[in-house]
């Protein structure tokens, strides 16, 4: 019988259909929201990795103290942290330039962020190379498997972000600040800045707290 309402109907003044396309869905906000949901699923991937890390850390004792010391190179990781945070700051600068509509500002910010991202990548891969050279590899045992997986998975994101930055530089050059370009720049901001958040966890809970494992 009753539908849930107390509204008395006024046939003349009741709007039944939304004429004039006034629904006006906010495309940009919808796009960034979907990307944000994706980003959270990625965070869940990291969370699952950390759960695995917690389980496999029980067997960290399979590695000698010197191996663990070589893996948990806190000084090196700290340098990587600075590079990544600086890159995030540079991309933040690009976002401020976007607000002002400055194409050159966005380009400069993105290029600096890209270069610093590559510096970060170079440091991570240098670290990996050093460890592999000493025979410390993911195949050694379960604990090293998860440690390397966490670090390499994060580095893969930096590679994806770098490619994305190149694509955005090209699209911005071609189209200027169209709605498509702007929402992608914002999604890239979400993506890039999220890497810094994840890195805090890796730096503190893997590199630093690895000391007491």
């Amino acid at each position: 019988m009753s539908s849930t309402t107390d509204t008395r109907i006024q046939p003349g003044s009741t709007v039944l259909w939304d004429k004039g396309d006034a629904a006006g869905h906010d495309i940009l906000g919808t796009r960034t929201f979907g990307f944000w949901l994706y980003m959270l699923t990625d965070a869940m991937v990291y969370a699952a990795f950390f759960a695995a890390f917690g389980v496999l850390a029980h067997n960290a004792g399979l590695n000698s103290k010197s191996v663990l010391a070589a893996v948990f190179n806190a000084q090196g990781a700290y340098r990587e942290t600075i590079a990544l945070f600086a890159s995030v700051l540079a991309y933040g600068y690009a976002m401020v330039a976007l607000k002002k509509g400055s194409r050159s500002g966005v380009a400069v910010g993105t290029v600096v962020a890209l270069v610093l991202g590559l510096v970060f990548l170079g440091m991570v891969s240098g670290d990996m190379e050093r460890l592999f050279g000493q025979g410390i590899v993911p195949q050694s045992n379960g604990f090293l498997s998860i440690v390397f997986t966490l670090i390499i998975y994060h580095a893969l994101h930096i590679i994806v972000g770098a490619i994305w930055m190149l694509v955005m530089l090209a699209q911005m050059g071609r189209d200027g600040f169209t709605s498509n370009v702007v929402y992608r720049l914002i999604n890239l901001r979400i993506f890039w800045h999220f890497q810094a958040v994840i890195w805090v966890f890796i730096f503190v809970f893997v590199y630093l707290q690895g000391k007491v494992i």
Partner: protein
Amino acid sequence: MFVHLQGPWNPVWGRLSLQAIPYHNPILVGTFLFAVVIALAAVGAVLYFRAGPYLWREWLTTVDHKKIGVMYCLLGLVMLFRGFADALMIRTQQAIAVGPHSPGYLGALHGYLTPFHIGQVYTAHGLIMVVFAATPLLVGIMNIIVPLQIGARDMAYPYLNALGFWLTAAAAGLVMLSLFVGNFAHGGWYGFLPYFELPYSPGVGVDYWMWAFQLSAVGTTLGSINLIATIVKMRAPGMTWMRMPIFTWASLSTNLIALTSFPVLMVSLALLGLDRYFGTHFYTAGNGGNLMLYNDLFWVWGHPEVYFLILPAFGMMSEIIPTFSEKTLFGYTTMVVASFAIGGVSWGVWLHHFFTMAAEPSVNSFYSVTTMLVGIPTGVKVFNWIFTMYRGRVRFELPMMWAVLALFLLLVGGMSGMMNAFAANDYMWHNGVFVVAHFHMMVLLIAASIFGAVEYWFPKIFGFKLEQRWGKWFFWFMVLGTAWVFVPMFILGFTGMTRRLDYVPYTQWAPYLRVMLVGMAFYVIALVFFFAHLYVSLRDRVKNRVGADPWGTSRNLEWMTHSPVPAYNFAYIPHVHARDEWAWRKENGVASLANESFEDIHMPRNTGVPVLLGALSFVLCFGLIWRIWWLSAASLALVVLVIIVRSFARNTDEVITAKTVAGVEGAVDDALPSAARG
């Protein structure tokens, strides 16, 4: 870098060779011939009717949520058939291979399936029914109905929607391909560790299972992002949260589960992949691996996944029961709360899948209690449905019959679930068929809800009703089959029968197993009636044409547009005033759908990119399964390239002109009689 393999491998073909084709197995050859006949018939029909361009233009490249939903449902139905064929094989084998004197055929010592073969059959049965039958059917129905119920013209991301479908289809294709090229995993659908590690399962079967699973997980995650964003961002003006139709609420809750839990499945499978391809030690026995870690991560996904399947089914029941009780839903708010309570609790119960792991008693007790908590919101739902029917004018048309069947199955499955929640009980019957019977009650209730939902919403999508006579035969034989298969299975569970047997040692169980086979015969007859139901419905489609509101007592927004729904859904976006907007309009006498002047409508343009990406992912996974590295590398590079190139496209939208809209709107007749009434 890659782990060393036993057996032949070469750089061009990887592990692929002619030996991979199981031409010596008459069952698989027969299946292959059957598949070839079906495929030839389909291709022939397409060529004969010159339907190729139409199919490509209107279906394969579509970004229309309704058509994608229909394709999801078709995929689900095909895979349901395959999964049923697997079930038939398992039941037949277990009815024959009882006791040491039972006969053996086709190279099997007992029965007609070798242990290796029946292992693949039950693995495929489980994986297919959960991931490739139930999931696509539910996702398909949500895909069609949710945008209509919230008054949107499409999903938030139509292109992503198509991509999600094609990834799922590619994954289903991999499972089907494993029949004829190579083999499938043979250790159960959820995987056994360390049995699924490379040294113990060196073949490609586990790889097929792993990549098909992984690909479908990606597809489902993308789909869940899409539906959540659609519900949050695309609701029609006036549709506040507490005015949302209950099926939309159920979809939101279920997709939140998918969004949060599927990433964990991806991790559990990816770590297995790293073990199998790179020789890491996540799940190995020894070298610091932990095989229970796999079970942990898998069921962190696995239990929420169960509710991912059941919540939309609950949503469907909540739509059907009010319509056919001619009343509003009892306890709307509690229904919403219950959906989210079930979704929330689902995240804290996963250990009950491995109570026997030997965790501390306090851990097992914790998970026992959380598992029992699920019963509370579910009970709320059951009572709400019953109170909805109470003092309603209940009409037992087909959708309602399915919904009531689902209610009964929910009681049986739910009560036996409570028994399983006791860790002490689980120590008795872990991996026994009592558990199997329990969760089959649950998935059959999902199936019943799906059949009800299809009967209910079919006229909305296609513009004509399904006939009722054969449909009722189909229904009753499904009931018979369910009773005859699963009542004996509960009894066998109590007598201690374990699951996944290729040979049954106790002849005392033979009578029950044969009764179950009779039940399977009822299911086969039901299948025949199902095809008759479809055929007669299609034949009489003109006679059964219906208008906008074929059931006459429907209550929500999806009935406020024409049947079949035009491409743009609503010529004008409806303005929402009440919880059951359509019922409200009918009560207030403003239920006319006629509009005079029309406006241009912006819609996304069709694109072939999602099909291409689906095909490339298929090839990528095929290369990985057979370790054809160049093929995988090339298809991965192409995937990246296609995504980048597509991002440069400018013309992704098109306009449906006011004139076209006026033409479509002028041609429909919403006042057509509702065939089944009167």
